[in-house]
C-alpha cells in the first residue's frame, strides 16, 4: 500500500456515502493505520449530490482540506457522471481507479467517464444488490465490498467486522446482517 491513499465518494444525500466513508476509516484505524473520513455537506435535502472523502495512511495525517487528487473514486449513482456542477473525474490521476454503481459493463462506463486506457474502471450493481438484500436502494455497504475486492486496501474480514460494529450502533441485527450480506455479494460480483 502506498503511504497515503486518498478516496472520493460521489453520492446523493440519503445513499449512505458518509456512513460508508466513516466505516472505512474506522476499519483502517482498527488495522493500525491513520485515517480520516469527512463529508462535504451541500444543501440539506435528500437526493442532492454530495461528496465524502477518505485519507488512509501509514503515517499521521494533519491535512484538513478536501481531497483534491483522489486515486480512488466511488460513484454511488451513475447519473452523477453527467450531472451539472459535479466532476467525478476532477483531479484524478490518469491511472486512477473508478468504481461505479451500475448494471452496465465497465466498457460502457469507461466511455461515459471519458477516461483513458490507464484508468481502472470497475462496475457493480450495488443498487440491485441493495434492493435484493435490504428492500431499498442504499448502495453504500455494497460499494465498500467492491472497493476492498478491487483495491485490497484493507483486510476483508476486518472490514466485515467493523461494518458490523458501526452499523450495530444504529440498527438491529437483522439489518446489520443484510448489509453485510450485500457487501459480500458486491465483493464477489464487482467486474472490470
Amino acid at each position: 500500500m502506498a503511504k497515503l491513499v486518498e478516496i472520493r465518494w460521489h453520492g446523493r444525500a440519503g445513499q449512505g456515502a458518509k456512513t460508508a466513508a466513516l466505516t472505512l476509516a474506522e476499519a483502517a484505524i482498527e488495522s493500525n493505520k491513520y485515517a480520516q473520513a469527512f463529508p462535504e455537506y451541500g444543501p440539506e435535502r435528500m437526493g442532492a449530490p454530495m461528496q465524502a472523502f477518505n485519507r488512509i495512511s501509514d503515517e499521521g495525517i494533519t491535512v484538513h482540506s478536501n481531497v483534491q487528487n483522489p486515486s480512488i473514486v466511488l460513484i454511488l449513482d451513475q447519473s452523477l457522471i453527467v450531472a451539472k456542477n459535479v466532476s467525478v473525474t476532477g483531479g484524478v490521476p490518469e491511472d486512477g481507479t473508478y468504481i461505479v454503481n451500475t448494471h452496465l459493463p465497465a466498457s460502457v462506463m469507461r466511455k461515459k467517464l471519458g477516461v483513458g486506457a490507464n484508468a481502472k474502471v470497475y462496475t457493480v450493481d450495488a443498487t440491485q444488490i441493495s434492493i435484493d438484500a435490504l428492500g431499498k436502494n442504499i448502495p453504500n455497504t455494497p460499494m465498500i465490498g467492491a472497493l476492498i475486492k478491487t483495491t485490497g486496501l484493507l483486510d476483508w474480514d476486518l472490514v466485515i467486522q467493523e461494518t458490523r460494529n458501526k452499523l450495530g450502533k444504529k440498527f438491529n441485527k437483522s439489518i446489520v446482517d443484510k448489509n453485510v450480506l450485500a457487501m459480500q455479494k458486491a465483493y464477489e460480483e464487482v467486474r472490470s
Partner: protein
Amino acid sequence: MTKMIGMTGNEAVAEAMRQINPDVVAAYPITPQTEIVQIYSSFVSNGQVDTEMVTVESEHSAMSATVGASSAGARAMTATSANGLALMWEIVYICASMRLPVVMPVVNRALSGPINIHNDHSDTMGARDSGWIQIFSENAQEAYDNTVMATRISENKNVLLPTMVMMDGFIISHAMEAMTTLPDDVVKKFVGNYKPENPLLDIANPVTIGPLDLFDWYFEHKRQQAQVMIDAKSTILKVSREFGKISGRNYGLFEEYMLDDAEIAIIVIGSTAGTAKKVIKDLRANGIKAGMLKIRVFRPFPATEIVKAIKGAKAIAVMDKSDSYDAVGGPVYKDVRSAMYGKRGGKIVNYIYGLGGRDVTEQNIHSVFEDLKTIADTGKVANQVTYLGVRE
C-alpha cells in the same frame, strides 16, 4: 502505545463530557445545536452519567439555565455553535462577570447572513471580549484534551472563569480521525470533585449573586475580572503540564512548528494549522525556512509570549478565519500586531480566509508563504490585508 480509535470531533467532545460527568447540562436541542449534545443526551438516557439534562427553548435560556445551575453550586456545561452562541450573548457576558466556571464546547461555524452552516471563526471571535477563556483545537484529539483540561482550568480557585473550547465545524466536528481517549478513572481523578466557592444552595452561608452594582463598585469588580484573566495564563500552563503527565501530550499557550529558525512564518488557529504543517514540511524540503505559530489559548491572549516566540521571522502573516468589517483587518491580526508594536521590527500582514466553509487548500497556504518570501526579500508589502481564495 494506547490503541487509536476513530472518532469524529463531536463524538470526542461528547466522550470527554461523559468522563467529566457534569451535574447539569442545559442545552437547546435543535439546530444550530451540534451532535455533541445529541450524543450526550443518549449517555443521560442510558444512565451512563448522573447529569441532570435540561432541554430548553432557546440558546438564551440554555446559557441562563447553565448560569443558574452553576450559581447554585453545580458543575454545569452546555454546548453551542454559530447563531446559537449569538443568541446567548447577553448571558455569556453575565456568566463571566459572575465568575462561574462553566465549560462550553463551541463548534465554530459562520454567523448568518447569508445563511451558512459551515466553518469559520466569526461566532467565537465575536465573543472574544466577553471575559471567557477561549481555547481552540486543531483536531479531534485536541478538542477532547482541551475539554478535559478546561474543566480543571475554569474550576481552579485562582481562575473561576468560564471556558469555551472550540473546534472547526464540519472539518473537525463531522470528520472522523484517529485519536486516543484516556481511561474513565484517569479523567475522573484529573478533573477531581467540584467544590463550589459560594454556592446559592449553601443555605447555612447565604450569599447574593448577580446584584445591582452601580458607579460605586462596578468598576472595581470589572478591574478584578481583568486581573484574573491576566493571572489565568499561569494556571492554564500548570493544568496543561499536569495533563501532559497523564496523557503524554504536551500543550502550551500556543504550538511552535519549525519556528526556531523560521525567516517567514504564519500565525494560525484551528484545523488549518494541520494543513499548514504539511505545506511547511514541503517548503523546508526545498530549503525555505518557513514556520508556524498555532494559537491554542486565544483568551487570555499570550501577547508577550508570541512576540518572544516569533522574534526571528522577517515577515509574518496572521491568518484570520473571520473578519471584523472595520476597514482595518481580522481580530487575530490586530491583537498580534498590537502585541508586536514597539517590540520588534519586521513586516506583518493579514489574510482573511475560509469564510463560510470555503475549503482551505495547501495551494492557498503556499501562496501565503510565496507572498511572505517576496516581502522578506524586498522589504515591501503590496497588500496589508488580503482576502485569500475568494473571487474578486
